[in-house]
């Protein structure tokens, strides 16, 4: 099973029980109004937040748990990895604090403990510890209106399309997270266009790690090529210089 969350914006009443449940389940402290916090409410101490979307809608933000995560591909020490269930998690023991994951994430999700002398990257783990114990993520359990539900990704996508099909007058005809950047495990359906709110601008379907793959695959060839060319050039030039010197002697 691929763990996934479907958030139906039309059902969200903005009560922020999910935010509270997340804080309790993950032992996150109270939020302080720091300079480095963004307006979307996510931070090292808030792994999910509810922002006000267009036309009075409420949109819950959290890590999207991409199927092909840019952060995992970017991390030089493999501190971020994807579990079998699809959750993208962070290993603080490996991290060295380069923050490349924060730069790479197309949704700008990972947040940093800027106020700590020993800072770590913090983000939603899809409540991995609860998944392992056979429970649902805390946010989906806390939601009083079932606006955010947990399940298998394939089933949730079917469910999302079913909702859109049944009430086309209510829903925007798109399941966010189904295709962009290779698909994400956290899906959205909404009565409004969420593109700008979730990612800042439209995302293409190509997964981001593919963009670096070509360059990285060229590395060994580039190295061998450059070294061979340089050695060859040196040999040729050396020989020519020797010959010139000999001719000069004669």
């Amino acid at each position, binding site marked *: 099973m691929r763990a996934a969350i479907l958030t139906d914006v039309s059902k969200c009443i903005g009560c922020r029980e999910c935010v509270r449940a997340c804080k309790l389940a993950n032992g996150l402290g109270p939020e302080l109004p720091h300079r480095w916090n963004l307006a979307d409410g996510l931070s090292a101490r808030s792994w999910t937040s509810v922002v006000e979307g267009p036309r009075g809608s409420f949109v819950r933000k959290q890590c999207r748990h991409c199927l092909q995560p840019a952060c995992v591909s970017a*991390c030089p020490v493999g501190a971020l990895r994807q579990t079998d269930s699809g959750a993208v998690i962070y290993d603080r023991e490996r991290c*060295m604090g380069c923050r490349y994951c924060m730069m790479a994430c197309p949704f700008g999700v990972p947040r940093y403990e800027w106020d700590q002398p020993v800072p770590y990257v913090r983000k939603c783990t899809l409540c991995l510890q609860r998944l392992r114990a056979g429970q649902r993520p805390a946010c989906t359990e806390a939601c009083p209106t079932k606006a955010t539900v947990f399940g298998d990704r394939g089933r949730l996508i079917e469910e999302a399309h079913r909702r859109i099909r049944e009430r086309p007058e209510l829903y925007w005809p798109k399941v966010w997270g189904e295709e962009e950047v290779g698909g994400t495990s956290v899906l959205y359906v909404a009565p409004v266009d969420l593109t700008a709110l979730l990612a800042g601008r439209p995302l293409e379907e190509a997964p981001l790690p593919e963009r670096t793959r070509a360059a990285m695959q060229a590395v060994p060839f580039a190295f061998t090529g450059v070294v061979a060319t340089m050695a060859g050039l040196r040999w040729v030039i050396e020989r020519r210089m020797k010959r010139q010197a000999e001719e000069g002697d004669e």
Partner: protein
Amino acid sequence: MSRVHRLKLALWAVTGLAGAVAAARFLFGLGVTTNLSDGVPWGFWIGFDVMGGVALAAGGFVVTAAVYIFRLERFHSIVRPAVLTAFLGYLAVVAGLLFDLGLPWNIWHMVVFWNPHSPLFEVGWCVMLYLTVLALEFFPVPAEQFPRLAAVRRALLRARIPLVIAGIGLSTLHQSSLGSLFLIMPYRLHPLWYTPWLPVLFLVSAVGLGLMMAVFESHLTAWLYGRRPETEALAALGGATRWVLLLYVALRGADLAARGQLAWLVRPGWRTAMFWAELGLMALLPAALLFVPAVRRSRAGQWTAAGVGVLGTVLNRINVGGLAHLGRGDQFYVPAWTELAASAGVVSAAALAFLFMVEKFRVWEERPADPEADPLKLPELAPVGATWLGPPAVAGRTLYSLSFLLAAALGLALLEPVSASGRGVERMAARRARGGEVLWVDGNRDGYGTAFPHEAHQKREGGKASCPLCHHMNLPGDRHSGCFECHRDMYLASDAFRHDWHASPRGGRVACWRCHAEGQPRRAATARRCLECHKDLTPPGATIAVRQYRAPGYVEAMHRWCVGCHVRRAQQMNKPDLGRCTACHRERRQWPEQLAAGRSEAGPAGKRLLLPAWSAP
């Protein structure tokens, strides 16, 4: 004082300033010493120290390639300084990176935890290996002066060609991979810069910069030590540079055209301006200058072309590294002075190391004579105080230490209280709740408050007897102190007990021994209890034992007190909504009834505050 000495004095001062910044950075974290944020996680330290630093150190592989591969013997005189600059440059890159990394002591993780998909992993490895190669390439120079190292030196000289070739290979990789770093951020980097060809553009510009850096450095040190610059060899370097720069401009233009982004070139905006400034400085202007033969051969021409080119390329790296990004939200990043100071300090330290090396070892054909080492010279008096500080070497060291320490002290003084205390949250005084039957609780007066039905609570909880439920402690002589009087800051804990006021002769005039018994350590734990003097500090039936002297912040106190009670009652009364945030926070930005007749005033962060009619004007 000579030019060199004045420069060293300045470099030591900048290093001292950076030392103060470094202390704050490593004690209190990145948040208070930089302007980085969740929206801008990479800033000046990555753009300048790392990306700019690696590019600036490109002279090493370019010049060694010219001399040892292409056998251009006329450049032989600049090989040693170029390799030394590259070596120190890479050391500076690593030092700068230690500032920027959140967990710098984990930098070795790259050696054991591998992720070959990551361009940063590749850059890290290449930099480590190339640093080793550079050390081995340069080691024979200082080894000349130590006869014991002759065998090592000979072995290294024999391995020179393989080392040079490995260095060129490694440089090609990581100079280009620094561009690959940004391939994964198509939605972040501005379209004027984002292209799949970034690695190639980075490599070509690094070659150009390496050449210009060699020219620039040669002239700078010539000016400094009164050496003769290698003007003719440098003119030849300039000749090669112009073609590289031309190639770069062509690549950049072709790439923009192929991606259909040419329209950006004329669209007004600061990013377009940055693009033109960058391209003009790094390639167009130096190439144009170098195509004029007279300019190419003149000292001033070489200086200008190389200096401008170096500046432009560094600007390019800063742009790609963080400046020309499409920010998240409306965050605009300007480096903090502490960031600039740390970077300047790292560069200064590297420059000092460079000057040390050229003075002690045969980096140039002839070692520069120390202008003050003349034994027949008259003693010189220090400009301030007109004292003789000893022989020049000692006097120099005294002055350098002094300038380092003074600058470090200045740096510590300049650090804001926020960066010195490390919380990153500014103090914000909490203010009194307003109203009567219904209290408007909005400690920071930002308009978002909660209307607390005070009288209703009082009645429900049992009249006057219920006061101590919330008013758990009152100031001496006060019957119901407001929450804000002890919980004085909105978010930070503050002292409920004013120790200094008690001790001050103009305040409480309480002698130390009244609270701290003789022979006891003077600590809060061993001091006399407040209640022993202030009998009325807690009301009868108080729900708090006065042990703590630190009162939690206003928000935390209110939440803890109200929510704790509400959650308990929610269970007792089976009213689940009572424990939820929305029970009190109803997204109400206005004082309910009285507000209609109220007035408004400017509040923090440009918000309009609506104040109730009875509030004092």
